[in-house]
């Protein structure tokens, strides 16, 4: 597979035209306050703004046009570098670029372009609106693109479900020395353990009971360890089997520090069996067992905060993650894999359910993103040494309506219910911040080695 590279992503509707990015670039690259010397240019366009910036193209016209060999794409970083010692100032490069990514700087007397600041772009650092982002997911593609996909092609998940994404990425990263438990739910439902003697997985996989995933894995891992074999024990489980009927075995295994990577794919209910409520179903949500009628308006209790419960077990690692933030998910997956070599690692990944939450199947990642941007879902991680910390800023959260209104399961909500949800989210955030502030005190040095 070819290589992918880091990039600077521009979200036009988030840009307020403050031009701080241009100032920062000019200062960093030309020690100047003149925004004309910035490699990034924000240009008013109608009501909003457009971006003029080098895209570090895969098949760059500027490089093709250059007669002097002054422009070259670096195969390692992907950055198109300009070499002043070779440049003949013909400006043919600027003619070739459709993005305004390379332009003549009159003060400098030659063309200028973005060099990505060696992987730490100055412009992104000063952008407070989120219009500019440094997207580093290229690393994921480069690192796992050539690793074997350990699930069979064509698993039968619902259209638009992100669980298949989670499964494939996780196993690619872990590799073949693994035993995978997939308790009853969507994950075996989409064929991971197979039917009638056929399997959907290229590594050892099994159905535990809905109730005993963590216990069975503990037995597997312990025996291999005893035999001197390094075989990883991984659970890919739903929220029902994790938070409800499987919680006792989960809690026991976490308390004992069993060396397991337990991934809970939280779609907020028993979606595989027809969308019944679980302990992870949020307040107000419609499910088939918390229906909406004249006298009932969805679930009347808040969701159980399962990842926080796992923090209270002082696991080697606990984190929440979202498939809308893959770089963050990947970083956490790596830390969880490492932690599971010596203790219990718990990863809670939110999985919007196109079928059960009632939204269009092409909107999964967007729904996941909105959940995080509205603070409905908080992204954080914990280990006993460093305590808990938020990994995605919770300030400037968007109004909760932006999340609720895209989901059919919340269509019936009245203002009181929305207010309840807002209160719950505020409490959740305050609690998580409390844990984050307490890091280094209560939980420090209490972990298992």
């Amino acid at each position, binding site marked *: 597979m070819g290589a992918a590279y880091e990039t600077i992503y521009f979200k036009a509707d988030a840009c307020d035209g403050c031009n701080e990015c241009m100032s920062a670039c000019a200062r960093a690259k030309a020690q100047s306050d003149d925004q004309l010397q910035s490699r990034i240019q924000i240009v008013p366009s109608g009501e909003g703004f457009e971006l003029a910036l080098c895209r570090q193209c895969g098949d760059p016209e500027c490089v093709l046009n250059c007669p002097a060999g002054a422009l070259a794409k670096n195969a390692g970083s992907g950055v198109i570098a300009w070499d002043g010692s070779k440049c003949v100032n013909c400006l043919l490069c600027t003619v070739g670029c459709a993005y305004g990514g390379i332009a003549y700087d009159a003060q400098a007397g030659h063309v200028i372009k973005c060099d990505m600041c060696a992987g730490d772009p100055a412009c992104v650092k000063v952008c407070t609106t989120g219009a500019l982002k440094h997207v580093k997911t290229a690393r994921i593609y480069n690192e796992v693109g050539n690793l074997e996909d350990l699930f069979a092609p064509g698993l039968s998940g619902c259209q638009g479900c992100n669980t298949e994404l989670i499964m494939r990425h996780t196993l690619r990263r872990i590799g073949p020395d693994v*035993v995978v438990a997939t308790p009853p739910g969507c994950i075996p439902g989409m064929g991971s353990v197979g039917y009638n003697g056929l399997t959907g997985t290229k590594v*050892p*996989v099994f*159905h*535990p009971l809905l109730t005993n995933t963590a216990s069975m894995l503990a*037995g597997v891992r312990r025996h291999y360890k005893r035999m001197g074999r390094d075989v990883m024990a991984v659970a890919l489980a739903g929220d029902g089997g994790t938070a409800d009927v499987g919680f006792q075995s989960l809690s026991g295994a976490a308390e004992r520090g069993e060396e397991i990577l337990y991934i809970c794919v939280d779609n907020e209910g028993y979606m595989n069996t027809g969308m019944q409520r679980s302990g992870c179903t949020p307040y107000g949500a419609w499910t088939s067992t918390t229906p909406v009628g004249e006298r009932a308006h969805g679930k009347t209790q808040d969701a159980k905060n399962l990842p926080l419960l796992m923090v209270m077990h002082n696991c080697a690692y606990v984190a929440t993650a979202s498939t809308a933030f893959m770089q963050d998910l990947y970083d956490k997956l790596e830390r969880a894999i490492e932690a599971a070599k010596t203790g219990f690692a718990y990863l809670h990944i939110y999985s919007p359910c196109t079928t059960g939450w009632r939204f269009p199947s092409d909107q999964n990642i967007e729904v996941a993103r909105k959940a995080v941007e509205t603070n409905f879902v908080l992204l954080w991680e914990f280990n006993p040494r460093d305590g808990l910390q938020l990994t995605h800023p919770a300030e400037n959260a968007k109004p909760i309506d932006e999340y609720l209104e895209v989901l059919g399961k919340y269509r019936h909500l009245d203002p009181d219910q929305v207010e309840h949800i807002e209160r719950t989210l505020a409490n959740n955030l305050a609690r998580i911040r409390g844990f984050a502030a307490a890091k280094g005190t209560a939980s420090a040095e209490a972990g298992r080695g």
Partner: protein
Amino acid sequence: MSAVLAPKPAKAESKLVVCDGNEAAAWAVSLANVDMVAVYPITPQSSLVEYLAKFIADGRLGAEIVDVEGEHSVLSVLQGACLAGARTYTASCGPGLAFMFEPYLRTPGMRLPLVMTIVTRDTLTPQSVWGGHQDAMSVREVGWVQMYCESVQEVLDTTIMAYKIAEHHDVMLPVNICHDGNYLSFGAARCELPDQAEVNAFLGEKDVNWHVALDPQRPMAVDPLTGGAGGPGPSAFVRYRKGQCSGMQNSLKVITDMHEEWGRRFGRSHAPLIESYRMDGADYAIVTIGSMTGAAKDAVDAARARGEKVGLVKVKTYRPFPAEALASALAQVKAFGVVDRSVSFGWNCGPLFQDAITAMQCAPTRIPAMSFIGGLAGADLTVTHFERVIGRTKELARDGRPAATVWLNEKD
């Protein structure tokens, strides 16, 4: 008071100890070189797992011990370990057995050769912590092999044999050794510990997951979905079920062979399926199970001394039920009485009684039989109780008219 049929001098390598049934079971586990034990304490099993923990702490048993948060996880941990290739052990009873029912139910279907002692205890409710067979009898139809012991020595010997039976390729099923709560769990007796090298030679190499495994070196999906209407599902399911039934029936011969080999190697023999005691020329018989048999044999001896033509048949292997052996042993009597330490709800009799009369369908003529229930919730079954059983069964042999179930401890 002993199930030993033909005592021979102990071999020089053996060691004599005085211990109770719980300790004897722990000794057996130690001698069987088990890889992993998972435990959760419950009366009257607790001292058994304490002995195991101590043996492991002292380095006598090189197994991994997992102290889990409940019986459900006990069996689940062991299933995982077994699928990874471990020889395993646990013990439970009563409410603990009820709690582990979900993985218990699944173990024989996965054909995992787990070995588990049930230190039998009556089930709730009424609230009770004492012995009775209701726990083990309540799971009799699930597909585990069940053997009931009479003495401390038989507990030790049977527990070691259980591994060879469970792991036999013709069987591949989990095995319960049932020993009576209170009477065997805490009753101390002389017990001979077999030589380790001899036990090793008897058990051979362990081979527990050749047929189903969770092993990256031979990846497979364990327990994929089968059944449903149409396609290959239903027939696959039927083949699994039939295979399980075959394993169960095969175990009758394997159990017999293992007991025979045990006798040859260790100079101590126990009846494998049933034991016929003073059945020569018996006009009528009583049928027993478990530790009550000792007092029952004393009562039979006393009755024989008085000239009564009574014999006794003890059932050791309860699942699979030794129907042919029992029918053959009782073929010549005019009546028999069956003593249970548990009840079969809905039939108003004991479960062993039910099985016995079902087995007697093989007999050429109908033989009158009666159900006696005693020893519930730790109640003592004494020689006096068995004299009553013998007397009532004698009456039955005379008039051929069975009465309703007799509750032995009702007026104690």
